[in-house]
C-alpha cells in the first residue's frame, strides 16, 4: 500500500470518527445539545424544514453565482491588465494589496446603507471580498510567466491584444485557477456573512434566525448547507485544475530551463 493510499484511508477514518463523535458526544451528554445537536437531529431538522431551506438556499446560490461572476471575472480581467502593464501595476497594486489587508466586513454596514438590505448589498460585498484575492493572484501569475513565451509570440507577429488573449491568458490559467479557488471561497463566505449580519433571506439569514431562537439543529443544518456549497465549488475548480495538469508541469520545467544566453 502506497503512502498516498494510507493517507487517504486515514483521512476517511478521521472524517468518519468525527461524524460518529458528532452523534455520540451530545447523546452521551458529554456536550449539551444546545451547543452541538446530534447529527441525526441536525439531519432531521434539514429534512423537516426542507422547503424553507431550499428556498433560502436558492437565494444564497443566486447571490453567490452573481458574486462569483463579478469577483472572479473582474478579478481575472483586472489582474491580467495589472500584471501585463507596469504602469498600471505601479499605480494600482499597492492600493489593492492595502485594501486586501483591511477587514472589509467593517464596510458592510455602509453597503447596506448604499444598496439596501436585499440581494444587492450581499452581491456587492461578496464581489469585492472575492475580487481582491483573485486580482492579486492573477496579477502575480502574469508577472511570473516566462517572458520568452511573449517574445516568441511577437516574433510571429502577435499584436498586443493577441499576446494577452493567446499567450498571457492560457499561460496564467494555472495561477488563475488557484486564485479562483481562494477568491471563490471568499465570495461564498462574503455572501453568507453578509446574510448573517443584515438580511431577510438566504442561508446566512437562517443561521442568524435560528440562533436567536436557540434552535441548534436548524443552525447546524444551515451550516451543513454552507459547507456543501463551498465544497462543491472547490471540487469544480479542482476538476478544472486537473484538466490542465499535464502541461502545467511542463510550464514549470520550462521556467527552470536556462533562457537564451547573450541577449
Amino acid at each position, binding site marked *: 500500500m502506497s503512502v498516498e493510499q494510507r493517507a487517504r484511508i486515514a483521512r476517511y477514518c478521521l472524517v468518519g470518527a468525527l461524524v460518529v463523535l458528532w452523534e455520540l458526544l451530545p447523546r452521551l451528554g458529554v456536550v449539551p445539545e444546545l451547543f452541538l445537536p446530534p447529527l441525526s437531529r441536525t439531519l432531521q431538522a434539514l429534512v423537516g424544514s426542507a422547503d424553507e431551506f431550499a428556498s433560502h438556499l436558492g437565494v444564497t446560490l443566486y447571490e453567490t453565482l452573481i458574486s462569483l461572476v463579478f469577483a472572479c471575472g473582474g478579478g481575472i480581467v483586472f489582474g491580467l491588465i495589472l500584471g501585463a502593464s507596469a504602469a498600471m501595476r505601479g499605480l494600482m497594486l499597492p492600493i489593492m494589496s492595502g485594501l486586501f489587508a483591511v477587514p472589509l466586513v467593517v464596510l458592510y454596514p455602509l453597503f447596506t446603507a448604499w444598496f439596501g438590505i436585499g440581494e444587492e448589498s450581499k452581491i456587492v460585498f461578496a464581489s469585492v471580498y472575492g475580487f481582491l484575492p483573485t486580482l492579486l493572484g492573477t496579477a502575480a501569475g502574469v508577472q511570473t510567466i*516566462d517572458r*520568452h*513565451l511573449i*517574445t*516568441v*509570440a*511577437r*516574433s*510571429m*507577429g*502577435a*499584436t498586443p491584444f*493577441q499576446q494577452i488573449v*493567446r*499567450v498571457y491568458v*492560457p*499561460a496564467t*490559467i494555472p495561477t488563475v485557477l488557484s486564485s479562483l479557488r481562494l477568491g471563490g471561497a471568499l465570495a461564498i463566505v462574503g455572501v453568507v456573512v453578509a446574510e448573517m449580519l443584515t438580511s431577510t433571506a438566504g442561508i446566512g439569514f437562517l443561521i442568524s434566525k435560528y440562533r436567536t431562537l436557540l434552535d441548534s439543529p436548524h443552525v447546524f443544518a444551515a451550516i451543513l448547507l454552507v459547507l456543501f456549497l463551498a465544497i462543491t465549488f472547490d471540487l469544480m475548480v479542482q476538476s478544472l485544475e486537473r484538466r*490542465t495538469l*499535464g*502541461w*502545467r*508541469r*511542463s*510550464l514549470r520545467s*520550462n521556467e527552470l*530551463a*536556462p*533562457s*537564451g*544566453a*547573450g*541577449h
Partner: protein
Amino acid sequence: MTIDSAHQGAVEVSDLNHVYGANGQTRKVLDGISLKVESGKFVSIVGPSGCGKSSLLMMLAGLTRPTSGAIRASGKPVDKPDPQRIGVVFQDASLYPWLSARDNVEFPLSLRGVDKAVRRDKAMDALALVGLEAFAENFPHELSGGMKQRVSIARGLVQDPPILLMDEPFAALDEQTRISMGDELLRIWDKTRKTVIFVTHGLSEAIYLSDEVLVMSGRPGRLLDRVEIDLPRPRNLEMMSTPRFAELRELLWQQIKS
C-alpha cells in the same frame, strides 16, 4: 529573374550599433556591424558568450530596435517582426505547452486569421517536412527535446518565409541529438533552400552546417572575420575528422580566443 526575386531572402546589415542603457549606465552591445548574406546561404554567427550575437539576431527578427544602423531583408527594411518574411526558431521552451504540436505550428497562421482548413494543411505539410506528422496531436510535454525543436522549426517554416533565423536552437539538446538535428536541419535546408542565419557557440556545429561563418568579438560585439567554409556538400560526419575541418576550427578558435 526580376530584381525583386534576386533580393528575395537576402539580408543586409549596415553599420549597426546598439547601446543598452539601464540605471543611467550605458553599455555598448554592438559596434558597427555590417554584413551581407546572400539568398539561400547557410550562415552561422559565432562568438564568445555575451558578445551580442543573440541581440543581433533579435534585431534581424525585428524584435529589438537597434540604436542606429539599418537592416534590410528581402530588399525591405526590418522594423518589426514579419513572420511571412522572416521565421525565427528559438533556443528552447518556445512551444506553447497548452497547444498540441499541430496547434503550435498553426499558431502564426491563426494570428493572421488564415482559414482553418488551409491552416491545418499547411501545418501538416510543415510537420511532414520535419518528419513529425505522426505526432501532430501530441502535446509538447509528450515530446523529446529534439522533437520539440523540430516542431519549432516547422512553426518557423509554416508560412514559407525566405529567411529563417535560428538562435542557438540545439544548445539545450544532448550531444547525440544535436548532431542528428544538424543533419536534419541540413536536409530541410537542402529541400527548401531558405536563407538560414544560425547563431551558435559551437564552432564544430557552425563549420559542419554553414557556407560561411561570421566571427564576432566579445563586448562590444564587432564583426571580426568572415570565414568561407569550403567543405563539399552534402556534408557528413566523416568530414569532421578531416584536416581541413580541423584547420577551419583552429582558425575560428584563434579569433574567438583573442
